[in-house]
C-alpha cells in the first residue's frame, strides 16, 4: 500500500534531505565565527572606559538576547504559515524552535544578571530589557507547556501555533509597556550600551558573534527539524529508505 501526502510547498522527504545536507554548511561557519569573535572580544577589543573588562559579557549577552527574540519570531511565522496553508513542515519548524529559544532566553537572563551585579551591586535589576526577556521566557514556557499538554500531534501543532501568533503580536506591546513603565519610575537601567557608538574593534567581534549565533541556531534548527518531520510523517513510505 503506497500513499504519500503531497504538500504544495516543501514536501517532507525533500525538506528532510535538504536539511541534512545544509546542516554542516551552517554548523562549521558558525563555529569558526564564534571562535574568532571570542578572540576578538576577549583579547583584541579594548576595555570599556566605564565598565572596564566587565563589558565583555556583552559578547555573550547580546547574541543570546538577539537569539531569544529572533527565534520567537521564526517560531511565530512558521506557526502562521503552518496554520494558514496547513503545512506540517511549517509546524515542524515551529516545534523545533521552542526549546532552543527558551534556552537562550535563559542564558540572556543569567548573563544579564552577571553583568548587572558589578554595575549595580545586585543580581536582579528591573531593567526594561531584562524584564522584557523574563516575560519572553514565560511566553516560551507557556508555549512548551501547551504543546506538552496536548497528546495529539496535529492538535498540539495548531493550538501552539495560535498561541505563538498571539504571543508575537503581544511581544512589541509588552516591550513598549515595560519601557514605558521603566521611564515613569526611573528604574535603573544597566544596558545603556547602544551599539553604533562602539568603536570598530569593539563592534566587529559583536557582529561576528551575532552572525555566528544565528548560523548556530540555523544548524540546530535543521537537525531538530528532521526529527520533527519524522514524527509527523508517521509511516510515510519514504521514511523506509531513511531508516535503512
Amino acid at each position: 500500500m503506497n500513499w504519500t501526502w503531497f504538500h504544495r510547498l516543501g514536501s517532507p522527504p525533500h525538506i528532510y534531505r535538504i536539511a541534512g545536507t545544509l546542516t554542516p554548511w551552517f554548523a562549521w561557519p558558525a563555529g569558526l565565527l564564534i571562535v574568532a569573535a571570542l578572540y576578538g572580544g576577549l583579547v583584541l577589543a579594548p576595555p570599556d572606559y566605564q565598565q572596564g573588562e566587565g563589558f565583555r559579557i556583552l559578547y555573550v549577552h547580546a547574541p543570546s538576547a538577539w537569539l531569544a527574540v529572533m527565534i520567537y519570531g521564526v517560531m511565530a511565522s512558521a506557526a502562521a504559515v503552518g496554520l494558514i496553508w496547513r503545512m506540517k513542515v511549517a509546524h515542524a519548524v515551529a516545534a523545533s524552535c521552542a526549546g532552543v529559544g527558551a534556552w537562550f532566553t535563559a542564558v540572556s537572563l543569567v548573563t544579564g544578571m552577571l553583568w548587572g551585579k558589578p554595575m549595580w551591586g545586585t543580581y536582579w535589576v528591573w531593567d526594561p530589557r531584562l524584564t522584557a526577556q523574563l516575560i519572553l521566557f514565560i511566553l516560551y514556557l507557556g508555549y512548551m507547556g501547551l504543546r506538552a499538554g496536548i497528546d495529539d500531534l496535529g492538535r498540539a501543532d495548531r493550538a501552539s501555533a495560535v498561541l505563538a501568533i498571539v504571543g508575537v503580536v503581544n511581544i512589541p506591546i509588552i516591550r513598549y509597556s515595560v519601557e514605558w513603565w521603566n521611564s515613569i519610575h526611573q528604574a535603573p537601567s544597566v544596558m545603556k550600551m547602544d551599539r553604533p557608538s562602539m568603536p570598530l574593534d569593539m563592534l566587529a567581534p559583536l557582529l561576528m558573534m551575532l552572525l555566528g549565533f544565528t548560523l548556530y541556531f540555523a544548524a540546530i534548527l535543521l537537525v531538530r527539524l528532521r526529527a520533527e518531520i519524522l514524527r509527523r510523517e508517521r509511516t510515510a513510505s519514504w521514511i523506509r529508505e531513511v531508516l535503512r
Partner: protein
Amino acid sequence: MSEFFAMDGYAIFLWPAYLVTLIAILANVMLARRAHAEAKQEARRRFAIEDEGSSP
C-alpha cells in the same frame, strides 16, 4: 597570562557568563542530535508495528 583570566576583578562575573553560554550551546547540540536519533527510533518501531500488523 594570569592577569588575562583575572579580567581585572570581573573574572567571577565574566567567566561564569561565558560558561553558561558554552553549556547552552553544547546542550542544544546534544539535545538536537538526541531528538533526531529518538525520532528515527520511534519511526522504526512504528514500521515494525505496521509491517507485522498488516501482513496477513
